């Protein structure tokens, strides 16, 4: 039990884009560019950012569902890139994923018991299935009589519970949660968030929680990494990020969250960013956020800001990062 459970260092993932039939130049999508972070046992790291920022790709790289272009991922002290055969299979047992869409991620032709048994069957642990399935259903707040039903007989929230139960079948150490509640109705979202927190406490799980909803991420995460166009722009304790965001993008993101409180909405100072996300095929030079940043200067164009502590108490990748804005 020494060192972090997961250590990601200098992770890069580029996707080649071929020229299309209707022209188009092709090129390289810089989906994840030099991303580093660590995750402890029993800890939740929230990975936030908007579509195309690379958060889901990062999650898939960590699980080795994608091969990185460069960089290293160490899980419990072992570099996972070199693993083959038995060692790789054992690794897969210890890291699992829950997907966003509880409709697409469950096979409609399988009964719940088959869905939950599949990980065990693959790992050659068929004998455990009978005892384990009712246990798993109970863990996620479903009943043992649900085992013989098909996914279509369940509501969205219940399906997500099934997806969570499946991820726990092999007793993993790490679960990557890729937007696990964003497809759910508000009242159901809260139920699933509570369930995840409870399971983490009980099972000592580490969560990599990928989401775009900042209120949700803040609620569940110990630490938060904010991503923009393939890079982490700020990372730190959840409380520190929310009360003393140093990066302009983090500040804009936080100020854009609509809050269910009319008085605060009337009083708020909103930072509305100009323009859209630049293309990840041809990201801006220097700081990638500079094209939408109100603080941008010449330096931002020529020199990429490093992700280091600039007096905020946590690393921020901005030449002109604020120190304690919310004071």
């Amino acid at each position, binding site marked *: 039990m020494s060192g972090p459970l997961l250590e990601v260092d200098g992770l890069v993932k580029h996707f080649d884009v071929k020229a299309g039939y209707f022209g188009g130049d092709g090129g390289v999508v810089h989906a994840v560019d030099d991303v580093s972070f660590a995750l402890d046992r029993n800890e939740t790291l929230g990975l936030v950012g908007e579509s195309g920022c690379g958060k889901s790709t990062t999650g898939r790289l960590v699980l080795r569902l994608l091969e990185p272009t460069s960089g290293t991922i160490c899980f419990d002290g072992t570099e996972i890139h070199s693993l083959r055969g038995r060692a790789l299979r054992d690794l897969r047992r210890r890291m699992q994923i829950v997907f966003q869409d509880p409709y697409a991620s469950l096979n409609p032709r399988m009964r719940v018991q088959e869905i939950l048994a599949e990980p065990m069957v693959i790992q050659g642990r068929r004998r455990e299935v009978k005892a384990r399935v009712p246990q798993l259903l109970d863990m996620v707040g479903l009943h043992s009589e649900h085992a013989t039903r098909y996914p279509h007989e369940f509501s969205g929230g219940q399906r997500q519970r099934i997806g969570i139960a499946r991820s726990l079948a092999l007793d993993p150490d790490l679960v990557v949660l890729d937007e696990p509640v964003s497809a759910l*109705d508000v009242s159901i979202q*809260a139920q699933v968030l*509570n369930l995840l927190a409870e399971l983490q406490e009980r099972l000592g799980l580490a969560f990599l929680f990928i989401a775009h909803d900042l209120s949700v991420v803040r609620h569940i995460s110990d630490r938060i990494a904010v991503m923009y166009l393939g890079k982490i722009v700020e990372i730190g304790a959840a409380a520190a990020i929310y009360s003393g965001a140093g990066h302009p993008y983090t500040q804009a993101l*936080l*100020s854009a969250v*609509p*809050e269910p*409180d009319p008085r605060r*909405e009337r009083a708020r100072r909103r930072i509305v960013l100009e323009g859209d996300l630049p293309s990840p095929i041809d990201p801006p030079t220097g700081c990638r956020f500079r094209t939408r940043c109100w603080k941008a200067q010449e330096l931002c164009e020529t020199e990429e800001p490093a992700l280091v502590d600039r007096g905020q108490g946590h690393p921020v990748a901005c030449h002109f990062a604020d120190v304690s804005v919310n004071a």
Partner: protein
Amino acid sequence: MTDALLDVRDLQVEFDTEDGVVTAVNGVSFSVEPGETLAIVGESGSGKSVSALSIMGLIEKPGRIARGHVDFDNRDLRSIPEREYRKLRGGDLAMIFQDPLSSLNPAFRVGDQIAEALLTHTYESKKAARRQAAVLLDVVGIPQAGDRARDYPHQFSGGMRQRAMIAMAIANKPKLLIADEPTTALDVTIQAQVLEVLRKAQRETDAAMLLITHDLGVVAGMADRVVVMYAGRIVEEGTLDELFYAARHPYTIGLLNSLPRLDSDRRKPLRTIPGTPPSVLNLPPGCALAPRCLYVQDHCLEDRPELTAVGPETHRSACFRSAELPALVGVVTDASS
């Protein structure tokens, strides 16, 4: 006739399905005053979008409006011929949909689609309509609007498409703008931009707005009054502050409590509404919320509470216990904390 711009009375919308008749909207009444923003809030299946489509006259088979009145600008929309309706749509009565990509025609230039809306209603010269289309794109904040008007929808980003939809909707200075989850498909910083544009568009046209959404944050920043729907019925109605600070229905209170907030206690369990919304095919006989309600009593399972005034006349709730609810909620809060 009232002085309301839109007056919906006792609306009932049914759909024929293989499993029987589904009543998606069940005796719903609300009104919108000129210039005001009314938000209809609810989760999936609550009937909020079907209500909006009924106003637009867009309920198609197997659905039908089984009962009720829809009066708009002192005209009874249920009795006007389709030809008249078509003049209203995109004219005085405009709608913005959730998914701009499926609402824009991929084969036509964005500017031409907006010009078409203008030519249908107010403009006669194609050239003038095109010029006005570019002006409208500029109003909604499309950079280099003159050039971008010649782009096709696929060349626009999601946020720009939604802006183009807004430009099209306000083209003919509508009296009422119906926005059905206008920012749900967008990223949070783009959502902020589009909401800003929507506010500006409303200001410049003096349009009233009917905002359909599930996002209470969006409601808090946009609406004057709010209607909360659950299982096809209105359960609570009031001004923005009445709803957010003095809610009198267990469902509204439950929704507000179940939201994680930027300033709430981290990692403290959220107070949820237990269970799942009922199937509209199989509604409980009494109050639809009763099986999930923290304050349920025996008669809630058999009798259905009517929407009645609680305090000021703007505030109404459909709960037998609405009067004692503030005290009850206080007790539960104390017990759980």
